[in-house]
């Protein structure tokens, strides 16, 4: 089985990112005089080249490219999510300049792993076959396991890495078993083939078990309740730039792949998965928000809040089957749009924690870098750094869903759609949950603006300020002018076949 050069175009953006990552590793290893800037420029170049490739695909090519026997398809949804992932990757590349210098991380490995993970995510959202989905899910997970533990001397980071690896491997087993069950029920790995087989009304108990297990695998990767237990520990233990990277991109990629599985493999059989997703979405929203209430560490609070936000995105998928039993695939567009808004506000909030980092005296006279984590680290910092505090306030209000920010529109679009399709209960639960979430988001603002400073020795890094400004700009832009972004999300779902 061979392929044409034309088919390679389907993975060209992801390949560009992958090659840039490998070159970064090579640069670190084989070139004697190397600088951090060279790595960042190389990887940034890869990201920009991939964005250009995606742009030309969107504006000049227009038709989806099906490649390798329809295992990969570069359609508008893949382009949309790839662009979101690339935007997040680009911002993380800028902000990780601070982390790699301060924590003395080997930057060849660091940049290489970030790029490889990003490339796997881009191929994951373009995957049209359970084989490619699985391979890309594993490549991105393996890169993230290492990235989590990349500060090798830090025991918390190591612990997080091992936890992530062990529970991730367990979830992978579920995913594989589910794929095996689906193969048993339908005789194919291809998503479109599974749809045709399910339409024939085959043994649906096996397909039900298979789809359920596949969804367990996805739920673990995106951190949905009850498979969220790894999220707070891993997000807290990982270096903050890694946390920012994985909290936004893995969600975009995982939910994107889940949308593709649901809409291409099982659209006619929403009875097999809609109820399951409904309960999962409700549990994720409620548990994520209630657990976030109790946290004193801002980083851990943001981890639980990211669990809650997974729940909001799942609402769109759970309500695709309206209460009068019609199936509305267009509903998934609100999940795509929500992921886009979530990308920038979460990235901004985590970057702010890097920005407010300070040095801790270590045991043997050396100093160790510590990002801002507890509320007391942020107490009263609004007087010293009014701009940064204002930006963090913007991100928090956006996460809580206050207009005129991106988060408000994301949630509005999501819950309005759910009500339109008759799912009032889940919309009410969602709105109540985000009301609860305001308490812990506003608490950070209260500490920033109304408390006396306790620690005032933060050493901000200019590159992080750039990231915060760009993320804040994007959050406001999407909040004020959402039309183009919503249209793009709707178009991505409409052409999904």
């Amino acid at each position, binding site marked *: 089985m*061979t*392929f044409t050069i034309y088919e390679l175009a389907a993975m060209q953006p992801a390949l560009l990112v992958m090659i840039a990552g*490998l070159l970064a*590793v*090579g640069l670190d*290893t*084989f070139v004697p005089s190397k600088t951090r800037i060279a790595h960042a420029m190389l990887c940034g170049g890869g990201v920009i080249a991939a964005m250009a490739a995606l742009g030309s695909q969107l504006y000049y090519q227009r038709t989806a490219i099906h490649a390798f026997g329809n295992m990969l398809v570069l359609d508008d949804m893949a382009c949309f999510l790839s662009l979101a992932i690339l935007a997040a990757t680009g911002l993380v590349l800028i902000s990780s300049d601070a982390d790699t210098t301060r924590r003395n991380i080997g930057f060849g490995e660091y940049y290489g792993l970030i790029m490889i993970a990003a490339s796997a995510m881009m191929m994951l959202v373009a995957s049209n076959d359970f084989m490619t989905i699985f391979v890309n899910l594993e490549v991105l997970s393996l890169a993230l396991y290492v990235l989590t533990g990349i500060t090798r001397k830090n025991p918390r980071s190591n612990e997080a890495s091992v936890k992530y690896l062990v529970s991730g491997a367990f979830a992978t087993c579920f995913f594989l078993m589910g794929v095996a069950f689906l193969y048993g029920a339908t005789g194919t790995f291809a998503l479109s083939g599974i749809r045709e087989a399910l339409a024939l009304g085959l043994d649906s108990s096996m397909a039900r078990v298979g789809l359920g297990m596949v969804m367990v695998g996805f739920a673990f990767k995106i951190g949905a309740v009850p498979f969220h237990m790894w999220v707070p520990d891993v997000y807290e233990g990982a270096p903050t730039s890694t946390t920012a990277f994985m909290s936004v991109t893995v969600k975009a990629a995982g939910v994107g792949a889940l949308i593709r599985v649901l809409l291409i493999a099982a659209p006619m059989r929403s009875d097999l998965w809609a109820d399951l997703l409904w309960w999962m979405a409700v549990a994720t929203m409620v548990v994520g928000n209630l657990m976030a209430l109790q946290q004193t560490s801002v980083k851990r609070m943001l981890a639980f809040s990211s669990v809650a936000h997974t729940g909001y995105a799942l609402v769109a998928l759970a309500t695709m089957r309206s209460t009068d039993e019609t199936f509305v695939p267009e509903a998934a567009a609100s999940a795509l749009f929500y992921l886009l808004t979530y990308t920038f506000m979460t990235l901004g909030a985590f970057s702010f924690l890097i920005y407010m980092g300070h040095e801790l005296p270590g045991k043997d006279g050396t100093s160790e870098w510590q990002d801002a984590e507890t509320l007391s680290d942020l107490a009263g910092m609004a007087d010293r750094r009014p701009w940064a505090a204002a930006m963090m306030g913007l991100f928090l209000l956006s996460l809580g869903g206050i207009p005129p920010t991106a988060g408000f529109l994301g949630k509005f679009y999501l819950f309005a759609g759910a009500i339109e399709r008759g799912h009032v209960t889940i919309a009410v639960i969602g709105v109540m949950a985000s009301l609860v979430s305001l308490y812990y988001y506003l608490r950070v603002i209260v500490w920033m603006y109304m408390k006396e400073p306790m620690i005032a020795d933060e050493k901000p890094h200019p590159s992080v300020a750039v990231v915060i400004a760009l993320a804040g700009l994007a959050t406001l832009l999407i909040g004020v002018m959402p039309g183009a972004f919503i249209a793009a999300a709707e178009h991505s779902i409409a052409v999904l076949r």
Partner: protein
Amino acid sequence: MVWAQVAIYLLIVTCLGLGMSYTGYFFLAPSRPRALKQEAYECGVPQMAGSRERFSVRFYLIAIMFILFDIETVFLIPWAVLYKQLGVPGLVEIGIFFAVLGFGLAYLWRRGGLEWD
């Protein structure tokens, strides 16, 4: 009711198997323990050291490298079997695969992964 029959059959088989082996163990077999019989190797070879030894963490790298080249072989054999049918595109594909693997080896070598200390 096929499954009920299977369940009953399983129950009988389990009881029979356990019953026979435990009857033999408790009532029939002679039990005369001696010091020599308690040893790990009943053939009489004396034990050198405990089995719960610690391994050097360096073996981990060797294991990883073994897996690397093991997988390489796994991919190489199907290509070698179908060499003629795959032709030039197959050669190019396996070439890319080798290039990436070779890059990995070069990285390992350069970073001192092949040195014992």
